[in-house]
């Protein structure tokens, strides 16, 4: 929709040209959320497109995803054959409520910064040990994705800070993964999205997203027994942490979390 209070667009081409942050500014990545709701508190958009950050960079250390990388670009990534986690990328892209037409515009960084519980790029990068690089005036800092998102539509960014990229270590990309998702409707917004991943040495991590207000990572030294997994979820995720909105009641989200976790456990154990 038209954002009629916007009077200026800044289009910096390099970091030095980023304008000093002032009240009423917003970073414009894909804009698919920004332009979907009235934003009457804003008067300037700082367009990140002209910075021309390379969308995806594969190195020996892993995968670097620019915040401005679109969902479609990520989905189309040709992964090295030893990245066993590759299918997870496509599974998470398909977990978007939005259609493929939005994937061409929406960005990975935008999804993280929106910090919706159902943000599937949060699920993906949290499950794969993603680390966020945040630019701040005169410097930068790093933080794990699971800690970057602090609640429903809340994250650690302070005004003026900019998410630059998410780095996925190659070790995480080589893990086997299992994915489960459920929503109130057949292709709707995720009410629970769980990812299990198994390390070479047998360790297992369950990442719970969408059902909880922020990502929860549950590590185990090996694939747990059913009761152990269940107990860990009940212990580590208090009822108050389950998300409550129109896309699923908390009790149901909790039940689906337990159910999908068990399915993941069985899948991972079965292929171990």
């Amino acid at each position, binding site marked *: *929709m*038209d*954002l*009629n*209070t*916007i*009077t*200026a*667009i800044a289009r910096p081409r390099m970091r030095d040209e980023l304008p000093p942050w002032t009240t009423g500014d917003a970073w*414009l990545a*894909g*804009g*698919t959320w920004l*332009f*979907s*709701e009235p934003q*009457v508190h804003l008067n300037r*958009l700082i*367009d990140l*497109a002209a910075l021309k950050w390379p969308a995806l960079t594969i190195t020996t250390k892993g995968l670097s995803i620019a915040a401005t990388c679109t969902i479609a670009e990520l989905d189309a990534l040709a992964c090295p054959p030893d990245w066993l986690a590759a299918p997870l990328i496509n599974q998470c892209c*398909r977990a978007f*409520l*939005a*259609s*493929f*037409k*939005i994937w*061409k*515009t929406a960005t990975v960084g935008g999804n993280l910064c929106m910090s919706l519980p159902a943000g599937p790029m949060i699920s993906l990068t949290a499950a794969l040990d993603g680390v966020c690089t945040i630019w701040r005036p005169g410097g930068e800092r790093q933080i794990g994705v699971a800690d970057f998102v602090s609640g429903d539509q809340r994250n650690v960014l302070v005004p003026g800070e900019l998410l630059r990229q998410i780095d996925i270590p190659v070790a995480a990309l080589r893990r086997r993964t299992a994915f489960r998702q*459920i929503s*109130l*409707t*057949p*292709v*709707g*917004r995720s*009410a629970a999205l769980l990812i299990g991943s198994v390390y070479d040495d047998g360790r297992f991590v369950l990442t719970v997203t969408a059902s909880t207000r922020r990502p929860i990572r549950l590590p185990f030294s090996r694939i747990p027994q059913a009761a152990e997994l269940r107990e860990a979820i009940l212990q580590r995720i208090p009822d108050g942490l389950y998300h409550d909105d*129109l*896309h*699923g*009641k908390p*009790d*149901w*989200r909790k*039940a*689906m979390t337990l*159910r999908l976790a068990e*399915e993941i456990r069985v899948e991972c154990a079965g292929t171990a």
Partner: protein
Amino acid sequence: MNFEINGKSFTQTPRAGQCLRTFLRELGHFGVKKGCDAGDCGACSVMIDGEPVHSCLIPAFRAEGHAVTTIEGLASKEAPHPMQQAFLEAQAFQCGFCTAGMILTCASLNQAQRQDLGVALKGNICRCTGYRAIEDALDGRTNIESVAPGEAFGRSLPAPAGPEVVRGAARYTFDVEIEGLLHIKLARSPYPHARIRAIDKASALAVPGVRAVLTHADAPDRLFSTARHERAWMDPDDTRVLDDVVRFVGQKVAAIIAETEAAAEEGCRRLKVDYEIWPHVVDPEAAIASGAPVLHPDRRVENRVANAARNIVAEAHGEYGDVASALAQSAVTYEGTFTTHRVQHAALETHGGLAWIDEGVLNVRSSTQVPFLTRRALSELFDLPPDKVRVFCECVGGGFGGKQEMLVEDILALAALKTGRPVKLELTREEQFIATSTRHPMRVTVRAGADENGKLTALQLDVLSNTGAYGNHAGPVLFHACAESLGVYNCPNKKVDAVAAYTNTVPAGAFRGYGLPQGQFAVEATIDELARQLGLSPFEMRRRNIVRPGDPMLWPPDNGYHDVLYGSYGLDQCLDLVERAMQAATPATGLPPGWLVGEGIALTMIDTVPPDGHIADATIALRDDGGFELVVGTAEFGNGTSTVHRQIAATALGTSVDQIRLKQSDTAHGGHDTGAYGSTGTFVAGRATQAAAENLSIELKTFVAAAIGVEADACVLDSDSIVCGDKRLTFAQIVRSARAQGRRLAASGSSAGTPRSVAFNVQGFRVAVNPGTGEIRILKSVQAADAGRVANPMQCRGQVEGGVAQALGAALYEEMVIDTDGRVVNPRFRDYHLPSFADVPRTEVLFADTSDTLGPMGAKSMSESPYNPVAAALGNALRDAAGIRFTATPFKRDRLYPLLQAKLAAQGKDQLPR
């Protein structure tokens, strides 16, 4: 900045925060539609460098240096794109508002995406079709027929607007350029109940570009109802154009009129309104309890408010026989309380319109189902003679009852009259949710009994309807919820206690089915429960109790209208058709173990016309070119009546539909038309067209017979000519000779909408439910419809499928949530889930073989009623599958799940299925 749109390059500078959608529309590309303006519906889809995107989400400046293709640039008029041709041949549209975006998206799909259309099309909402016809287009199926002259009626002919619809050239409400247009934005109440102490306009007027601010001080001091009916007595006079009391969050408080939308929006934000906040009530039960805040204390019975002090706008009480003693003596009884929730029409074109004054005539172009009744209301409100007000519409992007309401035309008229300038008001999707109308949520308690032979002994309804802050449609919807629900069953003892309550919530109004879906959800569940107790099949139980020709169709209290007749009767056939279809072998479902499977049905009866008059005039004239011009008042909003009217006229005149040029829905054309509601577009308006065409046929024959000296009976109309024995005169020759005599060959016809007939539908479902998640899968859906002689089988099938889809949306997903402060929590599509391609199963549609003695050429209504039995049938199927009677819609997974788990636990089954 340099842009390339549809192959043309030019330089232009969009506004900083402008999205591509409005940029394209301002450049005249009206095929780019606004459905939600938030990226959820896909109506604004365009291609950038050959890839489809939602143009409402793309900053306009980002299109710089890219090739943009809108529907207008997809192909030429002469050589349509194959996907446009496919949509025409499959007739994959109804109102056509989503079609341009749908075609662009479909045209871009690769083979892999075509294998999973549920995923590929999740970003394109069609509110009308139920998606089967769209799938047909993608599969290259042809659904249209070509027919010989005189044989149009009863055949699957295409919609006349089709070629324009698929090219994005069909003109909807806002698809017109007007010089010097002012824009209206409405300041709305943030409080559910308050009095306006003062409004300070100064800061709003100080915004550059703001031309006027209109408040209650500028509005006529008159009460009316936004509901439009032929008879004013049906609705209470409780509404002002702008009021000094606000009764729901979102009620309009002031109109800011400015040179741009941006200035009008800023004016709204700057307006200072001093509110005295009053206590509010949002729950209907609390509203009618003593001590509740009173919403309309000054309204009287003369205003048609039944009991203002108790917030009761309308009520009905009556009894035939003695229900209490009948229940006491019945072999089986059942009692249950059922609640239905608040849902929205979600027509893809929002409400709105344009108004201007031209040579002393107030012109209003709006998205309406009722141009003539809106003209009447404006004439009365503003003291203007009827001939000084013109209301009209061209294409309307969906209605479903939501546009049987005057929600914007009053402000448009006021603004045009006050400023003397052309004005535009286009509601946002959020405004649709918070400030137009919804279905009436209802709580229905049923008590019923039957004897050991399965004959009903007693049927009692206790209904509480929540009409919201104003009483538009409150009474008629309440009465209709009880009427045919009870009237379809023979039962010696019936009782009704029904109340519609005011609450401080967004008003409810007319919505497809008009109360019947709510009433039938309760009654059809009850019939099912009685059948279970007696060990009877749901079909047999109904056969033993349904009315048959000759049986009185009764519900207490007697409403005084006795003009409903059995013009035809196909309910028995509908039951047989569904029973046979449900018995037919179906492929293995491939369900994982543990899923519970069950079947259920529900029936519905609907009067083919609303009570107390529904009027339609039609005229038809022979044109100079030998074709015909047919003028009707009824509006086209995806209901398909434009197609049917041409079929009726062509059939009566022995010609082909391409000879009938249709003009419609414009008060300037003269005559009267009550409007396109109550499923009357075919049954009432079609009858007028038939009469006009038949009168013209006689006129033509008489004229020719006199000219050549034979009896009129010896003449027949044949394609483009009249044949009398061995003489053949073409219509073009006839019109020339008539003109030479100074004669115009024309005729008119009318229908008064009485007597009325009855139409029937039966819906059957086979469902599977997963008690481990609450997930429902519809394994089979079949609906039998008694539409009389079906005027256009393809379109009628589309109406049934679309009705089932819309009703499934309401039964499974859609829900407007209102918090304790009366605020709509989810006024956007991504939080109000409309059925997408993936959500709608295919429904087998079967027609009863009947022909109505009252309807045009044997046809009956069939646009609302397919909706009505769906939630009830689904509830009955779930009951059969899970052994649980779910008494509240919607049947969402998170609500079914705990009940399913409790049931399993009670049965000692803790082994959950996958």
